[in-house]
């Protein structure tokens, strides 16, 4: 049985009302309706973007001074050890976040998609709920959990595996990144799980039945039916998680007490941008950092889409 899509009804003005004024307002009305967004976007989106592009070619020094330096800000970036540290830290965070987060999210989604699990709705809400809190709250929460000597994490791990109670997660350069990754896992695994869950529920059940008839076991069904079925969503989650990871700022900023942490172990690209622009006051260099980040994220996202086969210039 097929269902017929309702026709799109285009209202046309009655002939009697086709006065000049009516035609004019009829034509202009759509533009008027989109104008609030357009005005806001041009003022607070497009203009700052263009302004920051211009600024990236200037050395700003103090509130009023700007000297044109051409590409000097960008060439300085290439040899700036702090920027290198920020890029490395951000890439490490993105790598671990994505490659731990996505399998865990998918695993949870598979679990909570299973009919045998009781109280699935409650569990879905529970796993998703950390994302309702916001990075600042989570940052404060985990900075308390990670405190040495008396913190819950150390107490727990001391009891389980005997780590020293005074382990300084947020003051030891080797432990800062694991602490950040763990925190982001807690926050985002449930969020990405929702995407996977929606994708899993959209996979055609007939395909599973056909696979079973063909003798496919659970692994074969997952590999041959589930994965191709959820691929568009998986690519979306992969790209969005990567972009989100490269924009990391609030979490380390709060957890590391408004600093980049010991030995800059928590310095991210956005944090470096913020410090350069609003602590050191060099907006030109900060703009160059911002544009480099934007281009970097664009390239990585395109690469990911290319590698995963999601970008073919058309629909599958």
């Amino acid at each position: 049985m097929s269902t017929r899509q309702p026709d799109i009804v285009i209202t046309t003005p009655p002939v009697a009302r086709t006065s000049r004024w009516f035609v004019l307002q009829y034509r202009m009305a759509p533009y008027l309706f989109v104008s609030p967004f357009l005005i806001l976007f041009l003022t607070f989106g497009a203009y700052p973007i263009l302004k920051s592009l211009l600024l990236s070619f200037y050395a700003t020094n103090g509130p009023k001074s700007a000297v044109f330096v051409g590409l000097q800000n960008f060439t300085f970036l290439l040899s700036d050890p702090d920027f290198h540290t920020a890029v490395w830290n951000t890439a490490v965070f993105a790598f671990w976040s994505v490659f731990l987060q996505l399998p865990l999210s998918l695993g949870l989604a598979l679990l909570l998609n299973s009919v045998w699990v009781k109280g699935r709705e409650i569990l879905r809400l529970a796993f998703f709920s950390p994302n309702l809190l916001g990075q600042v709250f989570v940052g404060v929460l985990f900075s308390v959990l990670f405190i040495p000597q008396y913190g819950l994490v150390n107490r727990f791990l001391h009891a389980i595996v005997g780590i020293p109670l005074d382990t300084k997660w947020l003051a030891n350069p080797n432990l800062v990144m694991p602490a950040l990754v763990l925190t982001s896992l807690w926050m985002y695994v449930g969020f990405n799980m929702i995407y996977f869950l929606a994708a899993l529920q959209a996979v055609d059940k007939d395909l599973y039945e056909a696979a079973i008839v063909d003798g496919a076991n659970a692994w074969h069904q997952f590999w041959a039916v589930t994965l191709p079925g959820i691929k568009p969503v998986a690519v979306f989650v992969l790209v969005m998680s990567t972009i989100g990871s490269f924009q990391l700022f609030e979490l380390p900023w709060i957890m590391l007490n408004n600093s980049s942490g010991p030995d800059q172990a928590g310095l991210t690209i956005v944090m470096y941008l913020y410090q350069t622009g609003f602590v050191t006051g060099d907006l030109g260099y900060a703009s160059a950092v911002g544009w480099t980040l934007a281009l970097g994220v664009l390239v990585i996202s395109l690469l990911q889409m290319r590698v995963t086969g999601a970008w073919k210039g058309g629909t599958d």
Partner: protein
Amino acid sequence: MRFPYGPAALSMLVLSILSGLWLAFHPAKRPQATLVMWTFAKTHYDAYKQAIPTFEAKHPGVKVDLQLVSWQAVTSRLQAAFLSDLDVPDLVEVEISAAGSFFRGPLKDVGFLDLTDRIKQSGLYDRMVKARFAPYTSRGRIFGLPHDVHPVMLAYRRDLFEKLGINPNEIQTWDDFIRIGRKITIPGQRYMLELPDSESSRFDPLLFQRDGGYFDPQGNCIMDNEIAVQTMLFYVPLVAGPNRIASDLGGGQIFTKAVEDGYFLCMIAPDWRSKTIEVDVPKMRGKMALMPLPAVYPGGRRTSTWGGTMIGITKHCKKPDLAWELALHLYLNKEDLAQRFRDTNILPALKEAWNHPAYNEPRPYWSNQPLGKLYAELAPHVPFQYTSPFIATAKAKMSEALVSCVQYYKTYGDKGFEAFVRKRLKQSADEVRRLMRRNPY
């Protein structure tokens, strides 16, 4: 007549017209204040709230709008205000480590008024602790009036000192301190001193105590000079290696618990921190005491400095004379300063204010020691610290160097340590110098 786009679009249109009309006929009230002032410290805010009505009474028709801005936000908000020329306050208090970042660029483009002539002509340069003008001075011009001195003492658990048989009067130098510290330190349970091994906030006072610093008066980076090397060689074995006597756990509730548990016996305590300790660890009332910082060598300086605040008048201010009067009212009124000292323990930079009886009052929390007198005796010896627009970067680089040196010392001990410290400090300083060389002005 039927609206052609349906009821939803019609209701949106009606709502936008109605709300637009409402806004047009009810414009936001323009602030009526004559002067707008920002402060980042709640204790300052509370004190100024009490002091401002008398200023307004002296100047009929003048209204001061005092705003509390989070200290984390004040720097970026002020930078943004200067850049956009919008919502710039008339007066603003700036924290010492952020002040330098506002002195970038040509002097004519600094967002603060040059107060040098006002300060020198009014005699304030001699009436206040001279060393405290240095952090707010750039290329010989003073842009801020110092709020405080912040001499550093050592706060200690008097009850535990007595229990362990430690006589604070026997501690004259850091060598004495370390010798005793090694006897009483039990790794993981009890340390002689609270010192971090991952950031340089408490390295700085020890660097300043030796007359070291990040920049010289001309703004040259000196954070890798011999004093810095010797300070690092002194500091790292305190917090790392088998003979460490210092540790830290963090601030807030964990600090409270650690002090109560006797996890560390001593803390570096400038005047402002003595109040923090009182507030955060109330159970220790009567069990704490203060002593001067141990000297580097016998007869040497027994104090240092940590933290600070300046008040500046922005170039945006339309009534700079009135703003200057307000700054003087807040920073020079001896009765107000005395009350503020009782509330905050902060010693003002105005030397003549220290004669007020408030500074001799015994403090029960500090085993009835006269807190103000103790800090005031040390205040004239507070070292100079010079600033630069690159001060925040230099401090971050010092923290990095400290962490590297700690890691080296933990791994290799004394072997090759001095050479490593020299190399690492030079590397950090060179990075700062490289950034400074980018300056096209």
